[in-house]
């Protein structure tokens, strides 16, 4: 198909929480025209005043769309993405990019078989204000070069956690690392680049009756010697998002993340400049600058970027298929590097 013109006729497959969020973000943008929605449970599709489908094949085939937003369970992401691309549709898909590296690579091949289509994955954390600020500070070089980072991302599984689809490996493909930790893995790559060496421990530390891990620990090292640690947890009883980025001339601490539930605490970035001469205080206690944020526009930014790629030929910067394949390769390596040898513990 040729380049889309405004508005972008779009369908959304999967109208759960994420599908609703994406619909609202498209409405905020104004450049999208929702032409159909699809969910196995049609009650989730109420209120959007467009044709409703329960079969995603039919939705793709019968809707006069230029783009599709994929917000389904993990087990059908790759199938939908590949079929949509083959039909000439631009695709925005939620993370994870399928259940496995193989599925991510299948989507990569499907994209490569097209001409001029856009495929973007939703790694929205890159668009949180604290991440945007940290990236600007890192890119400026004012704090020197990054040498290492430490990321912790964890949540508490609720009382229905053991029965959630996320812990059904056939549907999800993995546990907390693939579900949530993948965001932190993506951010570590975003700041430090790719990693070539990985050691890990993946385990069920509390949730004995799930088939996936509730905890993943990884030490990653890049070819340039940059080192990162990652802790992904489903037993973080008070939700936590922490990312420390240590540079040669300073240090950035990202604490908290603004979400709808506000359970991760206030989203803040603090930066410190190296102060070996103690000009601003005691050694190890330099002046700190903290910014906190009261808005999360990450969903809107993602829809902006997708729209600009589809309509204005502006290349995708975040959530490319290359990002997706890289992060899925690393996730698989974390699983593989564990002594237990696989994601099912």
């Amino acid at each position, binding site marked *: 198909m040729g380049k889309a013109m405004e508005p972008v006729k779009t369908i959304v497959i999967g109208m759960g929480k994420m599908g609703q969020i994406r619909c609202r973000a498209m409405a905020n943008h104004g450049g999208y025209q929702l032409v159909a929605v699809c969910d196995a449970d049609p009650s989730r599709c109420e209120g959007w005043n467009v044709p409703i489908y329960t079969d995603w094949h039919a939705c793709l085939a019968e809707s006069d769309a230029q783009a599709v937003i994929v917000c389904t369970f993990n087990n059908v992401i790759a199938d939908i993405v590949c079929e949509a691309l083959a039909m000439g549709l631009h695709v925005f898909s939620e993370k994870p990019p399928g259940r496995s590296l193989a599925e991510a690579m299948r989507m990569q091949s499907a994209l490569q078989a097209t001409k001029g289509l856009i495929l973007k994955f939703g790694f929205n954390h890159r668009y949180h*204000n604290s991440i*945007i*600020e940290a990236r*600007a*500070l890192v*890119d*400026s*070089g*004012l704090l020197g070069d990054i040498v290492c980072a430490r990321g912790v991302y964890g949540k508490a599984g609720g009382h229905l956690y053991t029965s959630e689809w996320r812990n059904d490996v056939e549907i999800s493909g993995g546990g907390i690392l693939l579900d949530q930790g993948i965001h932190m893995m993506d951010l570590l790559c975003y700041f430090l680049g790719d990693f070539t060496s990985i050691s890990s421990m993946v385990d069920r530390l509390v949730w004995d009756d799930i088939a996936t891990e509730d905890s993943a620990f990884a030490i990653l090292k890049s070819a340039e010697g940059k080192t990162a640690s990652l802790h992904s947890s489903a037993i973080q009883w008070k939700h936590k998002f922490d990312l420390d980025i240590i540079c040669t001339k300073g240090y950035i601490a990202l604490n908290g993340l603004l979400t709808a539930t506000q359970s991760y605490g206030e989203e803040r970035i603090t*930066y410190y*400049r190296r102060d070996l001469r103690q*000009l*601003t*205080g*005691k050694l190890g*206690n*330099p*002046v*700190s*600058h*903290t*910014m*906190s*944020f*009261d*808005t999360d526009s990450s969903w809107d930014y993602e829809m902006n970027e997708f729209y600009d790629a589809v309509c204005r030929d502006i290349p995708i910067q975040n959530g490319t298929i290359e990002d997706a394949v890289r992060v899925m390769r690393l996730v698989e390596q974390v699983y593989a590097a564990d002594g237990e040898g696989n994601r099912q513990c």
Partner: protein
Amino acid sequence: MLKAFDSIEAAQMDTGIVDTHTLNTERSMALDFVRANPARGGATSCPVCGKSHLRNFMTLESTPYLRCEHCASIFISVHPDIIEQYKNYEPINNFRSTEEYQAIASEKRMSVWNDLVFWVRFRCARYLQKYNGLDVVLYGGHYQGLSNNLENSGLCGSYRLEASVLSTAPESASSPGADVLLYLDQLAREAAPLQALSKLHGKLKTGGLLILSTRVGSGIDILTMKEKIKNVFPYEHTLLASVNGLEILVNHAGFELLEIQTPGALDVKYLRDNVAAMGEDNLYLRYLLETADNATLAEFQNFLQKSGTSSHARIIARKK
């Protein structure tokens, strides 16, 4: 607008950045001018928001200050011509040009300036995707150390100090305009702030950044101490715009407000040092200041920064 709350925890702040003798000298000189050129009053509208809901707020050195009920800015009703004369008042300008004045200021403030310049470069990287090679103007001000620090920071491809007692260079023509214009602690001397900001608007490229800092009228110090405050005096502080008022001003002057912060770090120290002068209306605050430990007071200062109620505001705005 990005709602960012920059808070600064400065371990060295206990020493302060103001030299008392210097401040008293400046104050004395300013008041000489004020006595010779008193404010005539008569304002019917707020110079910030234009609304006419005005109330008497306080009288300092026989000079009445009004407060706008709409935007909460505090100001003196004085003719702009008198303020222009004050800006050119030789005794105070000459005093600020002396080597001794500059040396004391540098000794007290260099650490703060280093931090400020780093922050400016960071924000330029954020909003302009550049943090060096920029065309930079420092407009107004009387600190050679800050000017030198800025000029030598690496931020500037070209640098101009304009409208300063330290510079005799004429103001630049508006074209082609600067990438970044810093207007630091100057707005408080303006009787016609919208005209002042509109003039600065003409000195920037489209998309260029205005970085403005000023004492505000919505801070805890002025609202608590009122006429007992010692570091506010006419006409050095003709306008204490509120945080809301600043937002109104920059928008009316043709800027897009990108962020506004109140990073003042010395409010609690100032209030604690002057607690004896605090009236009976502030018994809770007096009790807190007299009994709280240092960690609690530091947390209180942090709260003031975050809640937008510390004494200084900092703004970044982009020329539309």
